[in-house]
């Protein structure tokens, strides 16, 4: 069992420049069912054996694609998300980094109240190792099928956490990189809710970072609803205040933004908080042992 992506995923790739094409190949090699690619001027051609359409609308009607991954450069990325949404793609994963915030304001308003799920932008994507479904840019070989779910704002920290889990022999159900931008489609609390309701997930790792109050929202949900063990790490405890650390979200702004306050909220919610990013895997191992899982 898993969430968001699995053996029924029929993947469509928007943006097949160097990076998009490269990661499409890697997803195919990992075992993912890639059914279509989009390029505005190369309709009718193929890319690595995948048929190309000029519009998402046509690709969805012809191939039954049900997940889209977006690599379109920042100036056109919001348009690409809206195109996929309009074509009725139920799950959209946007990898693109550097989208203007006002563009995402528009996207968020357009998606409000619809059933479309958007993951990202500025995210590593979603992967379910058990069904070999990679909708993202992560290095597939560090993942191991299993039943720990991972939620992270940061992409590289997903890989870091997963490598540690895999080294401990702990496999993963689904790993979700929700993205580092101030406005994202699916927030940590929603990703944790999905994993909490998934029968195939028995424990959750949540990687947050300084800035905003998403970790406090998640902590409130965990306290109320989550019986599964949750291991948490907050990146940026040592960052100087007021500076934007790459992720626009990671500006310490106000009391909720501070790592200490996020950790305190998560501890109060019953989470196992790891102070060191190097000990997240070991902390999960201990948590699983303590709970007899």
């Amino acid at each position, binding site marked *: 069992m898993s969430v968001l992506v699995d053996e029924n995923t029929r993947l469509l790739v928007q943006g097949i420049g160097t*990076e998009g094409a490269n990661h499409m190949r890697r997803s195919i090699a990992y075992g993912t069912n890639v059914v279509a690619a989009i390029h505005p001027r190369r309709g009718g051609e193929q890319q690595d054996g995948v048929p190309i359409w000029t519009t998402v609308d046509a690709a969805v009607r012809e191939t039954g694609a049900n997940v889209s991954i977006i690599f379109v450069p*920042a*100036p056109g990325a919001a348009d690409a998300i809206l195109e996929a949404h309009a074509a009725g793609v139920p799950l959209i994963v946007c*990898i693109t*980094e*550097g989208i*203007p*915030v*006002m563009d*995402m*304001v*528009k996207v*968020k*308003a357009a998606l*409000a109240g619809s059933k479309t799920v958007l993951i990202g932008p500025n995210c*590593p994507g979603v992967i379910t190792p058990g069904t070999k479904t990679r909708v993202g*840019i*992560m*290095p597939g070989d*560090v993942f191991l099928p299993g039943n720990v779910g991972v939620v992270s*704002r*940061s*992409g*590289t*920290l997903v*890989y*870091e956490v997963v*490598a540690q889990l895999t080294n401990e022999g702990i496999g993963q159900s689904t790993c979700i990189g929700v993205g*580092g931008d*101030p*406005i*994202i489609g699916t*927030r940590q609390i929603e990703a944790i809710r999905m994993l909490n309701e998934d029968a195939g997930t028995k424990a959750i790792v949540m*990687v947050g*970072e*300084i800035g*905003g*109050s*998403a970790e406090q*929202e998640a902590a409130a949900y965990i306290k109320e609803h989550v019986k599964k063990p949750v291991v948490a790490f907050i*990146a*940026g*405890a*040592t*960052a*100087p205040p007021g*500076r934007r*650390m*790459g*992720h*626009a*979200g*990671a500006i310490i702004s*106000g*009391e909720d933004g501070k790592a200490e306050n996020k950790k305190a909220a998560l501890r109060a919610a019953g989470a196992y908080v790891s*102070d*060191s*990013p*190097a*000990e997240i895997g070991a902390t999960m191992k201990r948590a699983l042992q303590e709970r007899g899982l």
Partner: protein
Amino acid sequence: MKLHEYQARDLLASQGVPLPGGRVASTAAEARQIAEELGGRVVVKAQIHAGGRGKGRLVAASETAAMFQTLTTDPANNSGQVKGDRVGGVRLADTAAEAEAAAAAILGKHLVSIQTGPEGKLVKNVLVAAQTDVAKEYYVAIIIDGAQGSPLIMASTEGGQEIEVVAHKNPDAILRQPVNPAAGFEPYVGRVVAARLGFEGDQAAQFTKLLEGLYKTFVATDASLVEVNPLVVTTDGKVLALDAKVTIDDNALFRHKDIEALRDKDEEDPLEVMAQELGVANFIKLEGNIGCVVNGAGLAMATMDTIKLAGGEPANFLDIGTVNDPQRVVNALQVILEDPSVKAIFVNIFGGMARVDIIAQGVIDAHKQLKIDVPVVMRLVGTNLAEGEKLIEESGLPVIRATELGDAARKSVEAAGKVA
């Protein structure tokens, strides 16, 4: 990207926001000229990218660090009670001659305030604006509320003071009014905020118009912050923006070339400017001695955290991003080595979108192109690891290898000579 007050005023004025008359001057003679045009009674304000200007001190470049120490260690020095010729980057003048003298005292000096840091800020320009007789001060700002995905107006009757202090002491004194981005600034938004701030009649109408101008500026410029503190009602009943602060979303600068041209690189850390020019965008200078090259902002922050936990101090935050060209790694190392306090370099790469072999090639190229005389600790994991490993092996470089994050951090701290 931050803007100067005089630049922000121009943006606001173009959207109909009423401001006191005034212009920027770069010489005392120009300041006098502007003051004459405005009738003599003016305020002369140092234009720097930092707050606390009014209570700041004007000193020579050699004196900034000592002055910063004085201001930050003894609260009495920053109370606003100290008088003297060196005190105050914002000065009132009753005549054009006084305005000229005030500008002469400010221009060319380094202004040190509790927000400038120990380097202070060189004052190249002053804003000369008409004095205003203030009856009441307010605070108004527009930001993005990430959780709601919409612009948010924040306003308070507690204007004219540091809003962070208000937020801390009395959070209820700040009202929050979201704006539906699809509908935009409908008249009700202005009516609601005006009423909650206690505006009535003609002043409510004036305030609503001003607020709409701020919202239009926010949207038209892709701002991440528009802030007016204080917004004032004058003794003769006018509603004016007495200060202006606008910060632009860096990601949107590609569609605002005119605003990008307003960038003042002198206000930024020289190392960070150099990093920008070399295509190493996400670089922030810190105080420690371990230079960091990392991919991904989250891992970069976690790397700093791990170094601290191992007893060391990072010299920088650097997210090298998705590297397609080894030269970017060379450039990153060049920026880091520019900092004389760097005693070791920690390259921590977990390849996903970024490829380990390109990073490895970059480190090898850097050893050929640059003089690297500090130890380099390399931890490589992820996409194209085998190819990267092979390159490093064959190069025979004296790099310190590590595979696990905690171990790599400990080795970096040891290499920098600060054993945990």
